[in-house]
């Protein structure tokens, strides 16, 4: 549990979200809000993928 690779996911999601937000806006406030939106989208996407993979693993 404590050595799971999933603990590294925030280190990927946060920089990606901030950079993506920064490429769309100039205002720091807009950048932060866009980053938060992208964090949510990425977490939902990655969680969905993880669930599907775990289900496939369980089936096989």
């Amino acid at each position, binding site marked *: 549990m404590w050595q799971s690779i999933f603990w*590294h996911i925030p280190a990927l999601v946060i920089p990606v979200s901030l950079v993506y937000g920064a490429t769309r*806006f*100039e205002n720091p*406030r807009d950048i*932060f809000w866009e980053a938060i939106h992208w964090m949510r989208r990425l977490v939902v996407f990655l969680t969905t993928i993880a669930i599907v993979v775990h289900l496939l693993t369980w089936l096989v």
Partner: protein
Amino acid sequence: MNWLAKSVLAKWLLPEQCPLEGPISAKKNLNRDCSDKVRGRFFSGSNGLFGCSGSEDKLQGNLSPAKDASGITSGQGKKMEAGKGEPLTNESGRVPSRDKPDYFAGVLSALVPGLGQLFQGRAFKGWIFLGCVYFLFFYGWILGGRSNVYLPRAEQCVPFKTNIVRVAFGIPFPKPLYYRWQYVGQVGVGIAAWPAIIQCYWADEENEPDVTPPLLGKYLKAPPERELNRLQTEGDASWELAWVFTVAAGLLNLLGIYDALCGPAVIPDKKSQGTDSPPLAKGAN
């Protein structure tokens, strides 16, 4: 959220204190003007060595805030003309546009993430790009045992002097990249990934594992085959995840290069209305 960003900009990222001097006295604009004044000094030069000319005008009191707003870029990234012959600026520096790309800043960002934005006076975004891209790159590099950013000579596979590999349909391809295609993405972080090229041509990783170029040491030197096998078979999937991080960092910097070159993407979004962004000028659209 906005006051926090301003405080960070004025006090930490640009550490020089702003003496409240000069003709500007409107408290409402002191914080922003203070940041601009500091930034103008940070990038030095009477007109901003790095292109921060707008802040100097404001400090001289030549532009009132309302007038100033007609010559800058909004928070949504929409472009407005500052006047004939004047650079496009906003409160965070000179913003390029698709009509007038800033090629020099693009090259700077290709060398070091965020350097192009810093050159343009867009310090906040510059630090975001610099911090995030390098954090992701070095986090992945360290997580992968410092052995996932490299270019192999793969001497044992094909003699190095035949440096071209024929791939599908006989298309020639550089052999090091053929055996390590991830480097195509990793090299996007700029000069931090260039030593791998020097290491590749300096010595063979199998027969000369301890031969390294001066100054670089073993930084980004290709590990021997047995070491790679050990990293990939022992432990969990961290090594694979780690090189994904480094490739993601390189690809993210491509977005940063585009931002330095052509400015931010334009998103006509109602969300930004009512923020601290300067109001849109008449006819700006």
